């Protein structure tokens, strides 16, 4: 259907999917207003320096706070009045000029935590300063997607993110598709399939393991074949982890995987740039911009450009003032990005003031859950958005 599908040998997932989707569309489940739409979320872990990503070159305060790390105005890729991208983000410049990239200013939450783990947890759950145990994307799936269907959530990474933790869905988590398989002879595999049946015992950990084993057995063949067969002429750049992972997402989309929610992490705490930030940050931004630009080009090539939207976030920005080690310390508000062919590009929200600070940190201007709500409501079409996000959040009219 989309050119590079791998439907041969995988009818079980596809048939089930189309039938289930059709049934849900008939019942009018809200998310199925757009049964083909896919949301890809990219996590920039470590706390990306928003001020050196979307540079407020028009504000002299920026250069006062960043005497050594500030990006000189002549180097900034200017895309709006007073704002521009870091010079290494040529990929974002292209997307912005195509009208496919929206920047949302000043995203954060009240009473921000400067701890990676706490703050990332708040973004993962979508419940700042709360004790929620499920992820916001997990709750999207719980509220709107048929729990009998498998693989509606895919998390590319070495371990499962809290963001996709769900009550009723078991996200598919993998890193290297080539190793996502059971080794052995046919007889061994047959025996192992029987040993991987789900269990109901008094040991909840054992039941969890058995159910994961069962899911792994069903899904691994599909993922592996989809990835190994995938060829694309699109260049995703050299950004190792992220480029590779986004290409894997494209491969699964090409193979018509039923996945609606993809979660992609940038490995490690890369963006935690306390020391000697300039070179490292420049490289990370270049990788990110190249990989995202490549991915958007690739899904367009697959004929799925209209069906895919991508959201980029980080757990916090950095402090306005640079530190003494040519780096920046943990901060608060930071821009988010929404990318896709259906996006109405431009700037949304209000940029935080660089002088009216909270103890040296930016005061957020956009509750990040407004962006989440935009993705769940405006993009995926979930009428249950207030229940998912545990509150009413005004959306941005980002989608055409």
């Amino acid at each position, binding site marked *: 259907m989309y050119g590079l599908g791998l439907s041969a040998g995988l009818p079980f997932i596809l048939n089930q999917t189309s039938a289930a989707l059709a049934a849900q569309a008939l019942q009018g489940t809200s998310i199925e207003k757009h049964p083909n739409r896919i949301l890809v979320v990219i996590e920039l872990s470590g706390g990306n320096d928003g001020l050196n990503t979307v540079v407020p070159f028009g504000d002299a305060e920026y250069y006062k706070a960043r005497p050594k790390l500030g990006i000189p105005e002549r180097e900034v890729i200017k895309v709006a009045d007073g704002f521009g991208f870091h010079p290494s983000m040529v990929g974002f410049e292209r997307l912005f000029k195509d009208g496919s990239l929206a920047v949302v200013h000043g995203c954060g939450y009240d009473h921000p935590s400067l701890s990676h783990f706490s703050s990332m947890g708040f973004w993962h759950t979508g419940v700042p300063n709360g004790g929620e145990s499920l992820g916001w994307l997990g709750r999207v799936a719980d509220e709107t997607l048929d729990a009998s269907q498998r693989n509606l959530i895919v998390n590319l990474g070495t371990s499962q993110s809290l963001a996709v933790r769900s009550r009723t869905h078991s996200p598919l988590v993998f890193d290297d598709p080539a190793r996502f398989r*059971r080794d052995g002879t046919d007889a*061994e595999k047959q025996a*192992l399939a029987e040993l991987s049946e789900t269990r109901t015992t008094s040991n909840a950990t054992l039941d969890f393991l058995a159910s*994961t*084993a069962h*899911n792994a057995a069903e899904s691994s063949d599909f993922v592996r074949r989809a990835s190994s067969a995938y060829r694309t002429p699109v260049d995703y750049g*050299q950004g190792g982890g992220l480029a590779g992972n986004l290409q894997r997402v494209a491969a699964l989309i090409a193979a018509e995987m039923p996945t609606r929610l993809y979660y992609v992490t940038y490995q490690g*705490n890369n963006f935690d740039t*306390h020391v000697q930030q300039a070179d490292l940050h420049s490289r990370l931004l*270049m990788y990110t911009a190249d990989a995202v630009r490549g991915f958007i080009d690739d899904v367009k090539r697959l004929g799925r450009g209209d069906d895919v939207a991508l959201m980029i976030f980080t757990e916090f920005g950095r402090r306005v003032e640079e530190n003494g080690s040519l780096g920046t310390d943990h901060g608060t508000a930071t821009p988010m990005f929404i990318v896709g062919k259906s996006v109405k590009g431009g700037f949304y929200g209000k940029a935080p003031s660089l002088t009216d600070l909270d103890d040296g940190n930016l005061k957020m201007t956009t509750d990040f859950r407004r962006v989440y709500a935009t993705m769940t409501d405006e993009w995926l079409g979930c009428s249950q958005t207030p229940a998912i996000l545990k509150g009413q959040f005004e959306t941005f009219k980002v989608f055409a």
Partner: protein
Amino acid sequence: MTRESLRPLLVVLLFSVCALTVPASAWVDPPDGWKGDLAPLSASDWNYQRAAHLIERAGFGATPEEISRLAAMTPERAVASLVDYEAIDASALKPFEESGIWDPGMDPFPPSRAEAVRRARAHGEGLGEKVLPPGTQRRLQPVVDKFFYSLTANNIETQRLGLWWANRMLVTPRPLEEKLTLFWHGHFATGQNKVRDYRMLFQQNRMLRANASGDLRALLVGILKDPGMLVYLDNGENIKSHPNENFGRELLELFTMGVGNYSERDVREAARAFTGWTNDVLAYKFDSAEHDFGNKTFLGRTGALNGDDIIDTILAQPVTGEFVAGKLYRYFVREDISSDVKAELGRSFRASGYQIKPLMRRMLLSKDFYSAPSVATQIKSPVHLVVSTYRKMGLRDVPTIPDFGRMTGGLGQTLFEPPNVAGWAGGRTWITPATLLQRGNLFRDVMFPDVKGFRPPDRAMSATDTRVGERLAQGMNITEATREGDAESNKMVDRDEDYNTRYGGYAGNLLAFKRTKQIPRQPASIDVTAMISGAHADTVDKVVDHLVHRFLSVPLADKDRAVLVSFLRDKLGSSTVRPSETLESSLRELLYLVLSTPEYQLG
């Protein structure tokens, strides 16, 4: 303990004893009332199964004969044999043999390639290498090559160090010492990726081991003055004029108190107190010129506080005892800790002056430790999974085909390379559909090793470096050989005419391969046939029961046992086990199935 001298005899004698006296079905459910009860287990409740649980958690599992020996003691003696480990002679353990990759010009090591180049430009030399005369092509290339050499050589030394430690875990007569050291390594997470100096990690590893069961204060002082940690948390950059909060924040959040028990102001004040705590390469150094001697207010205490005062103030907080004891509990006993148990363990830990050993003794002897929610409910960490499997197989050397670091790394745990400052999250986070399949596959590679196709990671180049090498071999010049792709990123690489980064990566690899000791490669010497004949398992049923007994911490359902029995019967064509050329291979296939079950992930 004279375990070493008795081993050959025990192997023969005890196999049959335990196989006969403890059939695999003899799992006894502990009473419900034990849950949350910190009172010691009585001698009458002590048995093989509980001894197996003890050595699984306080060590890395054991062979049936070792477990039988523990089961023959009283619970107090058994726990003491693990906790009072200083009494056990460990001098036979092999020291780590360093390759000697470092030369004096490499200290202090620059934070980035760009900084190395800046320094070399300014001084005419860098990393012990002279810049080439003006007019020479790529004048700075020797420095850049050396920089990449250092990265690769340190990576290789760290791999060797990880293998050395894994061997120690496998053969040590003091298993709790290594288990605690591994715990502290995750607690005080420090990674080679950032430190880029294996010597610091080795030094930290010895410090953690020396203090593993001592008192928390010594451990905290040790880690806060540890060069590896000071570098990992950037405390060299924590100076009077620009305090860097990383160190203070992680001390409070991850090492001692946990989030929510202090304010942002406390973080900043702690950071000020630790200004000037830095390192001179491998030694701690107090730089009084960079220390802020001013007044600070930390957790309600005001004065010209220094780092030691901060530590004392932290240790005076009841929450510190609960936080650290609670983390030890979650690591050794089970994930969910009741508020009563946490409060009691925290209180007694603090009251003892934060002595770790009595805390360990109390936890490991408690009825709670042997209660149903604690037994076989923990998901083995990758390092534990691999080491304990080798221990249960009776191996005396960690096999190097497949590679140990690759095995555990693929499952999410590389020694000396924790994912971030919080260490490994553990528990269910180890398990994804992909890692669960890998957890079984690994042991197929161990039992059916691909010796011919094996590519040693300590001599492996990245795809890019390999390509550069191939092109140079074809006669291309450096610029041509290092050209890649057409993405925006590539157009920005190597514009500097003074050196070529890609070539530096390649040349650095070659030099590192020359100067590091290569890891000797050998597959495991497993003998499953000997294992089952030692247990007098002469029928298919007995073989399955013995392997289940030897390797699993929970019983297998009848249905699943039947799958294994019929698998082996089909392989052998009989219900009786007779010597044959293919017997060992069939038994290994069966063992692969046992080690791939969901049950095997539980320790």
